[in-house]
């Protein structure tokens, strides 16, 4: 029996609230960088097999950009920041001040831009999360991949040292009504973190 098997609806709501607060802060940071509104969907939280986590985002062969962080501290977790291909290219154009449509493939500069963007947004996410839960987080340096969604997501877990074929995920989708920006934030608390996070919110497992 895993700690997450004891999660009830109230726990999941609390985890969704963390997703809401973290992704909200990150979306605000992204909006202020771009000078345009970024919308957010209602977060989803649950324990899912890896292949169903893929389904939250799209089809296994869809090209996506992903920035991955391993977060250490009292509540070890992972953060993934995912963008679909058109959004990745558009964001590179916008952040480098190029005319829209200039970027059509990913070079080293583009990878750096997206990695740095992920770094800033993960920082905003964690700041809000840390303040809400009064916990301290130490994110690793970011890791970056651009490839098929299935390959990227499974490897984000495996190459980051997470070996279970199920995970507790807190997912928030963000998008823009005016520009082609569509992506996802994932927070994946490891087993050791779950109890800590819930405790910090005054909740207990069992």
């Amino acid at each position: 029996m895993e700690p997450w098997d004891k999660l009830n609806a109230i726990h999941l709501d609390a985890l969704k609230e963390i997703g809401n607060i973290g992704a909200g802060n990150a979306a605000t940071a992204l909006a202020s960088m771009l000078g345009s509104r970024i919308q957010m969907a209602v977060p989803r939280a649950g324990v899912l097999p890896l292949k169903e986590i893929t389904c939250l985002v799209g089809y296994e062969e869809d090209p996506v950009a992903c920035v991955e962080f391993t977060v250490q501290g009292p509540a070890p977790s992972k953060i993934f920041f995912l963008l679909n291909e058109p959004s990745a290219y558009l964001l590179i154009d916008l952040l480098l001040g190029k005319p829209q449509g200039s970027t059509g493939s990913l070079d080293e500069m583009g990878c750096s831009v997206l990695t740095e963007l992920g770094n800033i947004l993960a920082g905003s996410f964690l700041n809000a999360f840390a303040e809400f839960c009064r916990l301290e987080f130490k994110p690793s340096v970011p890791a970056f991949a651009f490839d098929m969604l299935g390959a990227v997501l499974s490897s984000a877990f495996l190459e980051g040292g997470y070996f279970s074929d199920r995970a507790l995920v807190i997912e928030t989708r963000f998008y823009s009504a005016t520009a082609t920006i569509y992506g996802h934030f994932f927070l994946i608390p490891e087993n050791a973190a779950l109890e800590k996070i819930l405790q910090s919110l005054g909740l207990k497992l069992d």
Partner: protein
Amino acid sequence: MEAVINPEEVKVGIAEWQVASSPRRLVTLGLGSCVGIALHDPTTRIGGLAHIMLPDSSQFQDRVNRAKFADLAIPDMLAEMLSRGACRSKITAKIAGGAQMFTSGDRHLPLLNIGQRNTAMVRQVLEELGVPITGADTGGNYGRTMIFDLMNGDVHIRTIGRPLKKI
């Protein structure tokens, strides 16, 4: 020209394996550091495709899903093929995947080397079972899809930005 008939495709998910026979195709999408193992018996046209995540089950307590591990999935799948009438001595293997998808300033990630360890274990298990490897497309830093035609044992590798490759 592509074949006119598009036989039914059987999808193999992550940490799963499937056995089927011609004219079906077995497909697994988006292998990153995971490895896909296609076993084929050309005489009966029975084949199996596994999508493993980790090399060695002995390192883990939770082994409920045996199909996740190279050392358990391959013998299990082989046994299922034999129980369906495949001829042991005719079976050959083709493998793909085992990439390192993420790049990072952190030295920790490549050290874990999960893709390479998966590939090494798959090779070792196949050798112990006496199944020869007749084709492989492993390593690198990109994702792969395997399309395995049970009619002739061909495995096509689809990637992003590279031409379709036959192994």
